């Protein structure tokens, strides 16, 4: 425990960040250009940080896995971004946003980080408007807001159902401007395969694979920022993009960085249900639909049965025979209950036999009342693109029949451990956005992911990284031919050669799907001791089988999509086990982590604040040893810890 130093500044919570900035170290403008920074990832966190650091004058190298920075998966965020502007005059404050976020995260977030997030949220909106992000507006010309799950105020700014896209394009514009100016150098179609840590313990570079040529490339810098997103794809099926992966974070872990709270996974309640074995990904329907939609299943099992067999249609079920279970269980928040609560409630109904859809793993999201109340045109203006998407995928008209939804893996609250400065325990290794263990605790509220990404990227990292870099001027350019670079590259090459040499019978996806099933069944929405223990064994077996029977065709030179996937899956096979271990050790239910043994008689999550009010920061001791648990105790000085309650306001 002594190993963990969160570096939280002294003082009242509302003054901590100001005090930090007042006392941080700065770099002389003339010297900034001599300092190099590597940014991996060009999503909201990485893109915004690279642009801002470039503007400040640092020499930035930015890496993305796709062909353009504009394609990072932040682009898929739909619903909106929170900020405590209180434009609607409904009683919002910075403290309330902070409070809602900490409560939404089931009191497992670091208070000081979350407060800072709420504090800079307003700057983000100002910044994005100045960049030309076309947020939704009222007829007055002023910005519009909508409500979102887990909050009683309307604080969500949005750009149709494409908020993430518009914010990312804003950051991409800022990044493009800096690339043109020459302060940022862009490397596309590069995948980071390892972190280079020097003998003195500082992170000084990365090894990437050029996905076009297959060559391994070395890049050095005075500091490295990972903004590589979450690891939800460990489940194979998730709302993440196909190339979203956990490898950068996992490789940092294996170089000594702590991995915090890996078991905190968010399962999003409003996804389009799984429809077949060949399916490659799940599609999210924005949570904003819950503003106007009501979620229900039939009250009678026999009705559910007949709907599954398509003998009757949803609209044939009379109003009194419908169970609006969220409204029933959580009268105060109703259909706007937080994501983890809503997801579990859906699972509970389906497991009890009330599910609909061909598989019985779906519930209805019904906008009929809203269509009647507001008219089809209003609903079309609000959700038209979502309805179109639903219709394209499911081949059903949502204006006529209720949509079917089911929870799916969406976001990982866990990630690399960072201190108040967003620096990991490896000096010089910073982590931003979803890749860090974040400000969300055990669950994340809607419209907060992009808030955190941009907060980290625009307003936190540029300050804290500068603080670290202030005494690095004397270091000079860092050569890439040092023994550390040689050794790290050798390790990567060995891993690739080993994969190519297996020459087995099964495809990478076969193993990925197998792992995904184990993770979903054993480390999914509801977990228990026996299941987790079995899951760990099964993951180990899949891993063993993978290394003896995977087939990676072709050669590592040039584009080799199977090799790319194999490298990612080989890391998921290790990461999945750590997730299960973390879930097993955390003997409580908190946010996205629900242990069946720890629930109230009416099925609500039961925390154990006495024994588990800490961040589990796992340390890598070597391949054949069990990971070491470090604990960062969470102290709530400015917020009263309560049992989460969405039943009454």
């Amino acid at each position: 425990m002594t190993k963990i130093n969160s570096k939280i500044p002294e003082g009242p919570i509302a003054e901590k960040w100001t005090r930090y900035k007042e006392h941080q170290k700065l770099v002389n403008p003339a010297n900034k250009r001599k300092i190099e920074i590597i940014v991996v990832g060009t999503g909201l966190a990485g893109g915004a940080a690279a642009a801002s650091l470039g503007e400040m004058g640092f020499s930035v190298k930015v890496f993305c896995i796709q062909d353009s920075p504009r394609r990072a998966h932040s682009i898929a965020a739909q619903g909106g971004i929170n900020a405590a502007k209180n434009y609607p005059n409904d009683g919002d404050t910075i403290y309330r946003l902070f409070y809602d976020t900490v409560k939404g995260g089931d009191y497992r977030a670091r208070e000081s980080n979350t407060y800072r997030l709420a504090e800079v949220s307003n700057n983000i909106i100002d910044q994005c408007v100045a960049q030309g992000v076309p947020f939704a507006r009222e007829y007055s010309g002023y910005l519009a807001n909508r409500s979102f799950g887990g909050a009683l105020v309307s604080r969500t700014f949005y750009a149709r159902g494409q908020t993430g896209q518009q914010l990312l394009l804003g950051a991409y514009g800022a990044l493009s401007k800096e690339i043109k100016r020459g302060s940022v150098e862009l490397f596309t179609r590069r995948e980071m395969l390892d972190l280079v840590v020097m003998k003195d313990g500082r992170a000084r570079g990365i090894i990437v694979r050029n996905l076009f040529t297959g060559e391994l490339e070395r890049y050095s810098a005075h500091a490295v920022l990972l903004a590589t997103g979450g690891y939800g794809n460990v489940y194979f099926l998730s709302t993440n993009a196909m190339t979203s992966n956990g490898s950068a974070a996992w490789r940092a872990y294996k170089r000594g960085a702590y991995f915090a709270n890996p078991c905190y996974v968010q399962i999003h309640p409003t996804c389009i249900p799984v429809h077949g074995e060949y399916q490659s990904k799940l599609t999210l329907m924005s949570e904003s639909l819950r503003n106007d939609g009501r979620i229900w299943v039939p009250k009678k099992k026999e009705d559910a049965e007949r709907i599954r067999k398509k003998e009757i249609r949803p609209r044939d079920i009379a109003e009194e025979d419908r169970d609006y279970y969220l409204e029933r269980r959580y009268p105060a928040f109703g259909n706007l209950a937080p994501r983890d609560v809503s997801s579990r409630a859906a699972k509970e109904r389906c497991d009890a036999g009330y599910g609909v859809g061909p598989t019985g793993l779906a519930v209805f999201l019904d906008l009929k009342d809203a269509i009647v109340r507001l008219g089809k045109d209003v609903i079309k203006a609000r959700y038209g693109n979502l309805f179109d998407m639903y219709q394209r995928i499911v081949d059903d008209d949502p204006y006529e029949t209720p949509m079917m939804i089911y929870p799916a893996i969406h976001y990982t609250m866990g990630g690399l451990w960072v201190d108040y400065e967003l620096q990991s325990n490896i000096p010089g290794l910073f982590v931003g956005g979803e890749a860090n263990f974040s400000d969300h605790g055990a669950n994340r509220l809607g419209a907060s992911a992009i808030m955190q990404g941009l907060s980290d990227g625009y307003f936190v990292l540029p300050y804290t990284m500068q603080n670290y870099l202030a005494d690095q001027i004397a270091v000079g350019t860092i050569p890439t031919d040092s023994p550390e670079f040689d050794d790290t590259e050798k390790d990567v090459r060995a891993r690739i050669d080993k994969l190519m040499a297996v020459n087995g019978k099964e495809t990478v996806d076969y193993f990925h799907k197998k792992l995904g099933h184990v993770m979903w069944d054993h480390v999914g929405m509801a977990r228990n001791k026996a299941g987790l223990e079995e899951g760990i064994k099964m993951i180990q077996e899949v891993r063993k089988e993978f290394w003896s029977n995977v087939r990676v065709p072709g050669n590592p030179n040039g584009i080799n999509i199977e090799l790319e996937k194999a490298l990612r899956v080989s890391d998921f096979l290790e990461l999945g086990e750590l997730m299960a271990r973390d879930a097993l050790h955390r003997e409580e239910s908190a946010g996205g982590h629900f242990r069946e043994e720890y629930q109230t008689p009416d099925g609500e999550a039961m925390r154990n604040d006495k024994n588990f009010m800490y961040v589990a920061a796992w340390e890598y001791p070597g391949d054949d040893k069990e990971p070491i648990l470090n604990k960062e105790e969470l102290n709530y000085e400015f917020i009263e810890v309560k049992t989460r309650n969405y039943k009454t306001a």
Partner: protein
Amino acid sequence: MDLKLKIWRQASRNEKGQFVDYEVHNISPDTSFLEMIDILNDELVEKGGDPVAFDHDCREGICGMCSMFINGHPHGPEAATTTCQLHMRKFKDGETIVIEPWRARPFPVIKDLVVDRSAFDEIIRAGGYISTTTGGVPDANAIPIKKVNADLAMDAAACIGCGACVAACKNASAMLFVSAKVSQFALLPQGKVEAKDRVKDMVAKMDELGFGNCTNTYACEAECPKEISITNIARMNRQFIGAKLG
């Protein structure tokens, strides 16, 4: 469903490519087009072959990564739909599907169906942004914007940069892409300061990169998965005339 596929295979940028025939069987109509290619690739890998390289990422129609020219249309025959959102129920059992990469001089083929679209990034770099820096900006509500203009700006900003407009255009013109970005900022007060330089610089970059000239065929609008309107091109032309005259 059983399908015959004619897919363009090309080992690398400098090698010659050709069409190769494949067959896939027992495809469910609910499969997405890319999942159908996944199934084909699984079979190819199992037989020890080289899987078909294609660009894709989010698979929910927003990242703009997917880029196939399917049966004569960019992103296939369904309107307002990216390849990843196209489902096999839109095809007939036994049909032959021709799959080609985007074809345009500024989009060279890298491998199979993968093309290099960095030209689009270069166009954006020429001026597709508002040169604000982090911090030091006014309060968000200090700049009221007419709702109708904000909505039109959003319509233009919905572009995903996939390149379907260039692929569809018989001239391989990038006017719809460029005009969408120019329009977005032309409609907003924040963008007015740099408007003249922006339109001139972006058009000059577009020409330099070797995109063709717009001849108002409007194929781009018809094929755009995000239904970006050609009125944006007209708006850009207005902006351009204004910039040249003023």
